């Protein structure tokens, strides 16, 4: 069965330091993987997606993610956090429908 596990429910980083949000997946075939962001009281916005092309995927707002098949991971990174990055982030895998992880809330410390 397909599944997505986000390893941290909360992550706190200082402004200007790197961000790492971890995601592992389980899939019986080559998956399509996504990261979404949800700011408070807003809908979900697609950050980036992996669909079996380049393993390093660049998204909006300086985020990127690397698909590692050997580790079944799709971690989200950003070199330097900004206060506006504070939000909830969802890793997701698509079969006929998208399966979401439980989310990671990113806190940015001034």
């Amino acid at each position, binding site marked *: 069965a397909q599944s997505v596990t986000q390893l941290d429910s909360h992550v706190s980083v200082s402004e200007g330091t790197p961000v790492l949000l971890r995601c592992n997946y389980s899939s019986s075939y080559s998956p399509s993987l996504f990261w979404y962001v949800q700011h408070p009281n807003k809908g979900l916005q697609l950050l980036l997606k992996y669909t079996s092309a380049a393993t390093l995927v660049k998204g909006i707002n300086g985020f990127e993610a690397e698909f590692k098949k050997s580790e079944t991971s799709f971690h989200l990174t950003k070199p330097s956090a900004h206060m506006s990055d504070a939000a909830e982030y969802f890793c997701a895998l698509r079969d006929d429908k*998208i399966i979401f992880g439980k989310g990671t809330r990113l806190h940015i410390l001034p």
Partner: protein
Amino acid sequence: GAGVSQSPSNKVTEKGKDVELRCDPISGHTALYWYRQSLGQGLEFLIYFQGNSAPDKSGLPSDRFSAERTGGSVSTLTIQRTQQEDSAVYLCASSLPGRGYGYTFGSGTRLTVV
């Protein structure tokens, strides 16, 4: 339209009443999905429509929940005899078919059952 439109944005209803939530997907998106997001919880899949195929209703939590999609476009999610545990944000998304496509989400309907 340019995006996925949901209405109403907020709904307060009394326990036991029926509610209808509407979703207007992006034109040309044949796939439409409903998810529920409860406070502090993740995204719970409810139902999925793809073109003229029978919908995947496997996520509906009880028979009080139903959804239809008319003319392959607008969808309505109906909750009968609402309960307090139905309070949540109901999100609609649409997509082109195929695993390579992400969803475009609407802003959601915040349902509060009092």
